[in-house]
């Protein structure tokens, strides 16, 4: 059975009866068979008993928590069963050794910029991403790499504004809180993606707290931040552009009282449904000789990192090939 992501948007209670969890709220009771769950994403106030936690832990199912605004607040990261001391040492080694760290940090940004370029070319927007990629080669500090990334992203948003309807222009990227609709969508999507990546890392031997582009103290699972840079353009930004361009999302999906700077429940529902669809979408992977889903691509990225730190194969960041 393939396990699925479950998204809970309302307040409620999670209960266990044998091997099934039940989500109970004012509208009733919904069963979640334990072997069908991959991860749980919860946006409301959720009460959980210790029996539930025990079962989730035993089955290795993470829960990601978001507050009602859709901001990520934390994860329940079950006890790790996939552990490799050798790998941990290598991961750390690649952090401590400055050259090794720079190589990985720069690869993440290279992937990020290349994928932004893909999005821009998809919409026929001329851009200078190649020049920025070029700049990466001369960076010998993490902050410099970060700066290139920041410049690329600013240009990227500026260019995307050209094809966005007036109401949906990004303008300045604003975070907490986002100041307009598209900023709200970007924040919401990036939080989702970050959590999805945490789940993928959980299913490998990688330690999620050791990162290369971001400082390990920036977030608890900072490796997920590193990896998310690669996938934000292809998974989140493409999704947002799609929703806006197809008129699938509009003003009524946002909280009017909050100046349209946050999705309302209906908006969240739509976004999540489309997001989940996208994670399941597959593309043909030449080397593997099979179709893989977008979600699986994230896992493959983890595998590539493992191979890199083990010294088996130089890491090449994911760059969308379609």
């Amino acid at each position, binding site marked *: 059975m393939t396990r699925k992501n479950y998204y809970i948007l309302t307040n409620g209670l999670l209960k266990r009866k044998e091997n099934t969890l039940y989500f109970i709220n004012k509208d009733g009771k919904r069963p979640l068979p334990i072997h069908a769950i991959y991860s749980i994403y919860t946006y409301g106030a959720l009460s959980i008993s210790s029996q539930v936690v025990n079962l989730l832990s035993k089955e*290795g199912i993470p829960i990601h928590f978001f507050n009602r605004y859709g901001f990520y607040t934390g994860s329940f990261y079950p006890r790790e*069963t*996939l*552990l*490799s*001391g*050798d*790998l941990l040492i290598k991961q750390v080694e690649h952090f401590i050794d400055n050259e090794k760290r720079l190589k990985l940090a720069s690869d993440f940004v290279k992937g990020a910029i290349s994928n932004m370029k893909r999005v821009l070319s998809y919409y026929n927007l001329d851009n200078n991403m190649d020049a920025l990629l070029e700049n990466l080669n001369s960076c010998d500090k993490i902050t410099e790499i970060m700066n290139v990334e920041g410049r690329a992203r600013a240009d990227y948003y500026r260019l995307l504004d050209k094809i966005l309807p007036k109401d949906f222009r990004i303008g300045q990227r604003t975070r907490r809180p986002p100041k307009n609709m598209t900023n709200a969508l970007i924040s919401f999507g990036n939080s989702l993606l970050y959590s999805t990546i945490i789940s993928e890392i959980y*299913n*490998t*031997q990688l330690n999620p707290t050791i990162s290369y582009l971001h400082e390990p103290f920036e977030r608890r699972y900072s490796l997920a931040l590193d990896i998310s840079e690669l996938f934000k353009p292809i998974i989140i930004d493409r999704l947002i552009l799609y929703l806006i361009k197809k008129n699938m999302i509009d003003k009524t999906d946002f909280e009017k009282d909050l100046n349209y700077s946050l999705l309302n429940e209906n908006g969240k529902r739509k976004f999540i449904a489309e997001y989940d669809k996208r994670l399941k979408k597959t593309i043909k*992977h030449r*080397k*593997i*000789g*099979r179709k*893989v889903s977008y979600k*699986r691509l994230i*896992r*493959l*990225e983890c*595998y*590539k990192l*493992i*191979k890199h730190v*083990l*010294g*088996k194969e130089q890491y090449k960041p994911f760059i969308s090939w379609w």
Partner: protein
Amino acid sequence: MISEAEKKLLVRGTQINYYFVCKTKLWLFSHHIQMEQESDAVELGKLIHDDTYKREEKGLILDDLISADFMRKGKVLEVHEVKKSNKMEEAHLFQLLYYLYYLKNEKGIEKIRGFIDYPKLRKRKEIRLTHDIEKRLEKILQDIDSIIKGDVPQPQRKKICRNCAYLEFCWS
């Protein structure tokens, strides 16, 4: 719960199997880089972590392997490996031979008989541990240790990759 000795034995047995199947697989498995999907390695992991797992299903009667009952004098210990097809792969053969070797040399159980059962074909084949095979096993164990100590072996694309749990790992 499965004992440390049993765990080691199982790991060794699996390593021998992988030694014949693929050296990359052997290395990754031995360094605890295991895949979360259903696979031998994961089954083994479950076997080790989850005491509710039915051991008989593994084909090898592990419970009995070190149970005192069989050590009693006079009784002959039978070790069975159940196979679906009669394709007798070296990997399985040596895995079983290793269990026999272990019981003989580590546990001092001399009266052992190894069988490969083919329930579908209603056939049973007896496996014998000879002196030459013991020597060969020792050589294999040494080889395994030096492979594990070295760098991870480059994967080689082969037929079995398609059904291997590491497929996506090796070829991503």
